[in-house]
Each structure stands twice: as C-alpha cells, then as structure tokens.
C-alpha cells in the first residue's frame, strides 16, 4: 500500500474519515492505480484489499484499466465508473489498510473481523473455521503424545534392560522406521486401511465385521498413523535417559531394604521421568506441526492447522494469513511446553538421570 499508492495513502491520512474524502484522494487513487497496473505492481494491493472485502480486486482493476480515460474532477468520474467509489465504507477500508500494521490476519486467524465502524466481531458462522482447527490440532496432539508415551515407555524400558547385542538390535528396530520417510509410512497406512486392504480383509475373514469398514478418511486413521510415525521420537529420548541410569541408585535402595516394586516405584521410575518428559515434548512439538499424515489418511474434518498454513503459503500465496496461523500455532506449542514445565515443578526436560 505504501509502495503502490503513496499519494492516496497520504491524502486519506489527512482526511477526517467522515463522509467522502477530498478530491485529492480521488485523483491520487485514479492516477496511482493506472500507474500500478502499467508497472505491474497492482497485485499485492488488490489481493490485500480483496481479502478484507470480496470484490475490491475487481473494483481496483476495473478502475486501473479505465484510469487513462478518466478525467477531473475525479470525485465525479470515479463514482460514475463504479458506484462503490461513492460509498464512505470503501474509502474507510482503504484508509485503514494504509496503516503500517494491520490486525486483519491475526483477527481472521481467530475467526474475528473488524466492522467498518472499527468494532471487532466474530465472522459469519459460514466463514468460521480456525478456532475449531486450533482446538482440533491441540486435541489430536495431546492424544498422540499421551499414546506415544504410554506405548513407548515399556518399549524403552525393555530396550534399556536388554544386554548387548540384543539392546542394539532392539534399538535398530526402532531406528529403522524412524529413519524411513514419513510419507512412505503414511502411504503404507493408507494401503493397509483402505476398503479392500489387508486390515479389512482380516476383519472380514475373522468374521468381526460383515462389510468392509470405512477406515481411511477417519480420525481413527489419523491418530493411528500419527502415533505410529511419532512413536520412535518418544522412545529414543526415554531409552537415552534409561540406559544412563546409575545402577548404584538401585543397589543403594536394595541395600536399604527396598523390594523390587518399591525400587521401581520410588527410584527407577522417578529417575526415568526426564526422558519421559523429553519424549513427550518432542512428540507434541512434532504433532502440532503434522500435516502429511492427516492429509493422506484423514478426511475433510481431520486436517490440522499445518495443512492450512501450507495451503496459504504455497497455493493461495496469502503469506499474511500463513504467518498469522503460524504465530498462533507457535504460541500454542510454547504455552503447552510452559505448562508442562510448571506442572513438573521445573524439572529439566531430558536431563541425565
């Protein structure tokens, strides 16, 4: 806006916002739009204003194309071209967009919008999307994290208790899937879960179901595949901490008369907790940003925030919206991490046992 329509912006800044702006603003608008079209930098401004109000792109381009034919006084020739130039709301919107910062994207990413009078309201229910999306992302990430920790802990404990070469063999079994592509593992789940896939074939063969289940495109599939993909991320930090546990702690506990259960509950388990927290933290942080797996095995109601960020970034080229969603996602992840730290009394995440 500052680069494309500098004189319009200055003229509107001087305007009191009541009624229609002075002739200078109309003239600057007509001339600068014409020049912007000619020099091909009208796109940014027209997209930006169109995102604020649908139809603005068409209005600006139409005016820019007609600009060479428009004559003074522009306060008459612009409204004659399109009646929207005679509406104060149009000018107020442009004036507001001329500021150095905008709350537009941050508001939209929370399903809020600013009315022409400046008040902030919830968007039309038909357009509301992002609050649901953030809650869903949080919910899916928490479930995935809990499942990964609960499933990963016994595996990690088992690996830590094995002797070489079995311990490294077991670790390799965790590492191989960890190293293989997320894409490949997610696609494999699609193949397994599809209507005529092995899972449904087995269920039919065993007589558990009469007709193939719809598994692909469900929340269940998303959770299952994401948990599988992230499980090694949870296991590895736990193994790291558990293998470094000093066996003398257990010996000391035994020498003081603690039985196996007490040794586990009072000594070994608490000492393994930093690993559990590190595993949980890494799993959660990766889960909030997940999008390949939900895109492949999930349905329309299973996409997470990251999918929309990618969509805005790559497809719609609306980087403002992508940035606003990213900021909230980062804040959400940060808040959960901080909460985790407070709940654990500031225990160092991933510290040596």
């Amino acid at each position, binding site marked *: 806006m500052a680069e494309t329509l500098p004189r319009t912006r200055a003229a509107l800044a001087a305007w009191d916002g009541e009624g229609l702006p002075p002739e200078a603003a109309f003239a600057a608008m007509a001339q600068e739009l014409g020049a912007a079209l000619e020099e*091909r930098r009208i796109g940014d401004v027209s997209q930006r204003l169109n995102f604020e109000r649908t139809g603005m792109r068409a209005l600006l381009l139409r005016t820019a194309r007609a600009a060479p034919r428009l004559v003074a006084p522009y306060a008459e020739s612009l409204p004659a071209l399109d009646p929207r130039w005679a509406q104060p709301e149009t000018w107020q919107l442009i004036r507001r967009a001329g500021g150095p910062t905008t709350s537009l994207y941050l508001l939209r990413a929370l399903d809020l919008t600013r009315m022409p009078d400046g008040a902030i309201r919830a968007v039309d229910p038909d357009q509301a999307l992002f609050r649901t999306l953030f809650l869903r992302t949080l919910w899916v990430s928490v479930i995935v994290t809990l499942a990964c920790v609960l499933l990963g802990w016994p595996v990690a404990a088992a690996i830590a208790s094995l002797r070489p070469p079995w311990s490294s063999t077991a670790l390799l079994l965790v590492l191989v899937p960890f190293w293989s592509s997320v894409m490949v593992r997610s696609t494999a789940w699609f193949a397994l879960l599809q209507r005529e896939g092995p899972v449904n074939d087995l269920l039919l063969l065993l007589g558990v179901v009469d007709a193939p289940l719809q598994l692909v495109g469900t929340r269940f599939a998303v959770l299952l595949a994401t948990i599988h993909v992230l499980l090694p991320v949870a296991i590895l930090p736990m193994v790291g901490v558990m293998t470094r546990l000093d066996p003398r702690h257990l010996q000391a506990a035994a020498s003081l008369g603690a039985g196996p259960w007490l040794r586990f509950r009072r000594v070994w388990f608490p000492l393994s907790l930093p690993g559990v927290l590190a595993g949980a933290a890494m799993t959660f942080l990766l889960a909030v940003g997940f999008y390949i797996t939900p895109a492949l095995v999930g349905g329309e109601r299973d996409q997470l925030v990251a999918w929309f960020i990618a969509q805005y970034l790559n497809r719609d080229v609306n980087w403002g919206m992508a940035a606003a969603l990213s900021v909230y996602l980062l804040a959400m992840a940060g808040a959960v991490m901080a909460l985790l730290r407070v709940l654990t009394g500031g225990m160092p995440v991933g510290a040596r046992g």
Partner: protein
Amino acid sequence: MTRLLLLLAALVIAMPAAAQRELTIVAGGGQLQDHMRRTLFESFTQRTGVPLRDSSYDYNVGPIRAMVQARNVTWDVVMVEAPDLIRGCEDGIFERIDWSVVNREKFLPGGTTTCGAGAIGWGVSVFRDVSRNPNGPSNWQEFWDVQRFPGRRTLRRGARMTLEIALMGDGVPAAEVYRVLATPAGQQRAFAALDRIRPHLHFWTGGQQPIELVNAGEVAFAVGFVGRTANAMRGGARFDLNWDTLLFSFDYWAVVRGSPHAANAMRLIEHITNPEPLRALSEVWPINPVTAAVANDPAVRGRNPLMMSNHQHRGLQIDTEFWLDQGPELEQRFAAWLNR
C-alpha cells in the same frame, strides 16, 4: 561452528555459478513431461543449440514468488494455471510475453494473455469403473441423484469447480452457473446442494487419487482429471468417462521475471507451441493443444478419441476472473463447510 562457516563460504562461492546455469523449463512432471522432453524440449536444443534442463513442480506458485522476491531466479519457463498466471502477471512475477518472438496468431481464442502463451488444456469430468458400476450418472443432476445411483462420490477438495458442479447438480444450466454463483443466494444454493448429499461425498487432494479411489472401490463415481482418466483407460482400466460433465481450463507457459535467459525463454516458448513438435507429442500422448493448427487437425483428433479437444464444446470453461475475485471468500467458506 567451523564446519557451518565453511558451508556458508561454499554457498557464497557457489552463488555466482547459478548465473551460468542452463535454461530451465518447469512443468507438472509425470509421464506427460517425459514425452514433452522427447518431443518438445530436445527438438529445441537440436534446432537452436541452446542447452535445456527440465524440472517439475506441484503447481504451487509460492516458491516462484519467493525466488522473484529474493532475486535468485532458478527457473525460466514455467507451466502455470490460469489464476496463478493472471495474479502473477499483475504482481510482476512473470515477464510479458514478447509477441515479436512468439507468434500470437497461432493460438486458439483465449489461448494467450499478457504474460502467458497457451500450453495445454485440462479438464475434470465424471468417471466410474464399469465392472463395479455398470450404470452411472450421465449429467450433473444425475450425479446428485443418490437414490438412482447409490454410492460414494469423490470431488476435488476446494471451492473452485465444486461449487459450479453443485449448482449444476441442483439444476442450474451451465451457461447460467457463474451468474448465479456471483449472488449470495446462488452461493447459498450451492452450499445447500452440497449439504443435501454430504454423507455421500468424499474429497480428494492429489490428481491421482480419484483413479486410486475408484480402483480400490472406495468410491463409486469420481470427478477426476480427464487426461489421467483417459490414460488409465488406455492402460486397460475399464472406466466410463462422461464428457457431458466436463469442466475445463488452459495451462500456460510463462517466463519468470528476472530470468537471466529471458530471450531464449521466449524462443523456447515459440518452439514448443509450434505445430510440428506438438504433432510429434500428440502421437505419443493425448494432449489437448492450445495451438489452433494442431487442436483442429482432424488427423490428431481422429487418433485420440479420448482427447479433450474432441469434447470441449460439451463442457463448461472455468471462469478464471470469477475465481480471482470471489476465490478467497468462497474457498474459506468451503473450508469452513467441510470442517462442520
């Protein structure tokens, strides 16, 4: 740390080398691009002696914008979709086509814009596996008739095309679709039509998915890209492809702004839109050329009954300008609808 510095130093040294890179053309990849390489690209190098490298992308224009803004242009000629081309042209992401090098007269009507020269036509239409479903819908109203033709249907995930289809499913004639869809009442009607058969709908994201979904029996009827469907049929798939449900548009060749090879890029576009190399391509792949002499060539048409040019008159051309204006709002409304 030292290693990181060395890496950075290596990058800085490597950067001027980018200026000497070869002329690079980027399209959608896949088998089509393999055939393009043999028929279009290699013949350009043979004729002009200019070395040419080709690469593929997923039609996401974000990276192109990033390379123009960073002034590190590594692609020269790109195949782009119509909305991206027009937006990119307004934003100065693409160069204006030099019509003194590229012959503007050879294209079909609508086949050129300020920054783009028509590359290929593409479309979507309904298809089904006849071995699973001997009968299927023959128009959009029947596609919406879930009593008469039971089974799940899959459409592209997105408002563009889906809302047009929903209106036609609700009985709006093709010629009226964009006029109706421009009104709030028309938009309401489109979403209400989607609501009506929502339990029977599935939405795909990647172009190969409709074929996989139909092959796997996940859906009974699919709206998919006609090129891919036709290709699967030539590969032996027992599909019925319905041309009365065609929605189509063009893809264009464009030159990335700031390309160090802009002059050769224009010559390349002139060559790959010429009838001779396009005829060679049409012999190995059922393209839908935008070059009139090839698109209207009876020999080319006769060779490929599944070529879109033969059926284009039965379809609806997607209104690019409509979607540039209404797209952001309708796409978000569609995303919100999907998530409800």
